[in-house]
């Protein structure tokens, strides 16, 4: 992993004050691992305060987001045109992204505390009006096209910046995903790195029962993508895989990240209802305890 400003910010900002407010017992090894835990705690805290759902989806990508904002992406500042771009194509996991922005110092904690409040910039889905958000998302199937265009533009401009697109597996039901997949594969957009959060769930059921897209890797390979399968909760493996990618030349990259919906909170894991359900107070307390214990 490269040592970026974001990485340094995490080292400096994830201090005892944040941890003390939750009474966390941290025994995690790396900044990205600590960041993932902090993202999960922020997801729980904000979801409880706002009494909203989409908790399981956000927890599912917490480790991926931690890797991206914990050093994998080149993020000198929100205003740096040459920064890497992120398209959160599964926009309903925005709370994980907002939490990361707060943790790297791009968003004041007070602003994170407005999540889903009246008059807030922070809704369930991210909007570009918020500093640090590159693209407004929330309509599934949109993000990969945006990312492919951003990657094509970077190449045309002779820039080394990369474009990350974080997608859901169910999102691949959308035909537009495959339009973008074809284009990126044909044009060998090597600076495009898509990550599918393969948690096997969607709003009303399990993906294998709704529209089974397994084996996912075969579809992307068929469209001339460089496909890697990785444990989406193995921070070290995620980081190493991203670090190993040739983004200067070659094909677009697809990381199929196998994840567990609701990861970190036992009673949410792999249960469909936590796509929408908010937590009760007791459930919140249990969730925090489990995340703090690093289970």
């Amino acid at each position, binding site marked *: 992993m490269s040592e970026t400003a974001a990485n340094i910010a995490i080292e400096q900002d994830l201090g005892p004050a944040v941890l003390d407010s939750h009474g966390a017992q941290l025994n995690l090894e790396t900044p990205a691992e600590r960041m993932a835990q902090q993202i999960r705690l922020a997801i729980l805290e904000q979801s409880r305060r706002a009494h909203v759902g989409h908790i399981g989806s956000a927890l599912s990508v917490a480790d991926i987001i931690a890797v991206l904002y914990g050093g994998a992406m080149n993020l000198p500042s929100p205003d740096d045109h040459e920064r890497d771009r992120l398209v959160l194509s599964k926009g309903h996991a925005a709370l994980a992204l907002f939490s990361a922005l707060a943790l790297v110092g791009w968003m004041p904690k007070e602003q994170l505390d407005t999540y889903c409040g009246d008059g807030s910039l922070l809704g369930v889905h991210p909007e570009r009006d918020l500093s640090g958000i590159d693209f407004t998302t929330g309509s599934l199937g949109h993000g990969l096209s945006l990312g492919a265009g951003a990657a094509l533009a970077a190449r*045309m401009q002779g820039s080394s910046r990369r474009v990350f697109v974080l997608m859901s597996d169910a999102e691949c039901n959308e035909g*537009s995903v495959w*339009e973008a997949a074809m284009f990126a594969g044909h044009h060998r957009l090597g600076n495009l790195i898509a990550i599918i959060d393969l948690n096997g769930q969607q709003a009303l059921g399990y993906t294998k029962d709704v529209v089974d897209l397994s084996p996912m890797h075969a579809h992307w390979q068929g469209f001339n993508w460089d496909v890697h399968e990785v444990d989406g909760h193995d921070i070290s493996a995620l980081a190493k895989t991203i670090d190993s990618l040739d983004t200067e030349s070659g094909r677009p990259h697809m990381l199929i990240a196998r994840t567990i919906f609701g990861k970190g909170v036992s009673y949410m894991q792999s249960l469909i209802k936590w796509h929408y359900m908010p937590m009760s107070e007791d459930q919140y307390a249990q969730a925090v305890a489990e995340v703090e214990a690093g289970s």
Partner: protein
Amino acid sequence: MRGSFIRTLVEIAREDPKVVLLTGDLGFTVVEPFAEEFPDRFYNVGVAEQNMVGLATGMAEAGYIPFVYSIVTFASLRTYEFVRNGPIAHQLPVRIVGIGGGFDYGTAGLTHYGLEDLGVMRIQPGITVVVPADQAQAAAALRSTYNLAGPVYYRIGKDDGRTLAGLDGSFRLGRTERVRAGKDLTLIAAGSMACDCAAAAEKLAELGIEAQVLVVSSLNPAPSKDLVEALTGVPVALTVEAHYVNGALGSLAAETIAENGLGCRLSRCGVTETPHGLVGGSAYMSGRFGLSADGVVQSALRALEEAAPAAR
């Protein structure tokens, strides 16, 4: 008109390296001048209009001014949500070029008839909607809007031949252009229907009816002030558009009259039924739906007749 549009785009691209052109595999014998002169700024993205707009949004975020090119229906309807959540939501300078409104693709059938684009685009506050009347105005409109900060939708007629006398390539955002004065009736034309309206006004004059002809080429921003001025004190107005009667120019005129308490009676000339199971040449199809000089005359006479009791 599309040839004029592309020629002008080539000229602009020579001056502005930010301009790129994407096509959804359409534009045979039209887009080649751009593709040949700027091969690094031209992409045929394939038959994938949604992706084309998504790509353009990503490119615009990086600083480009991408033009996306397709037939009206595919450019506006297939892509609509991508336009809404892309260039409109992000306020990025993507240019959507829809070719061939109304029945321009006459024999191609319903799938190729552009009858809703202006309506669906107009209701979005965040996009400029331009519908030029002839090739000179298409060139002028492109020159004056290509560099706007937000998105633009252009409906560009397929017919390259016609020129609207008196317009002289004039285009102003948020304004109308009056090409003929008259006190009995106001004909308000959307884009390329202006030529038919001008011809209709000549025929009406032979019948002793003096018709004013207004050209609306900027639907968004709406030329509200000019419309109020033109419709004040005029007994009857007839909107004419190669479009369904609801949603676009006719609706804009109705809104303007109602919201300003004008006493003008409005009739709307446009398509009122789904034109399925019927094809023919562009002129034939347009004529079948009253979108010709003769059709406009008939609609105008009917409108005057219907308004007569109120006018007395």
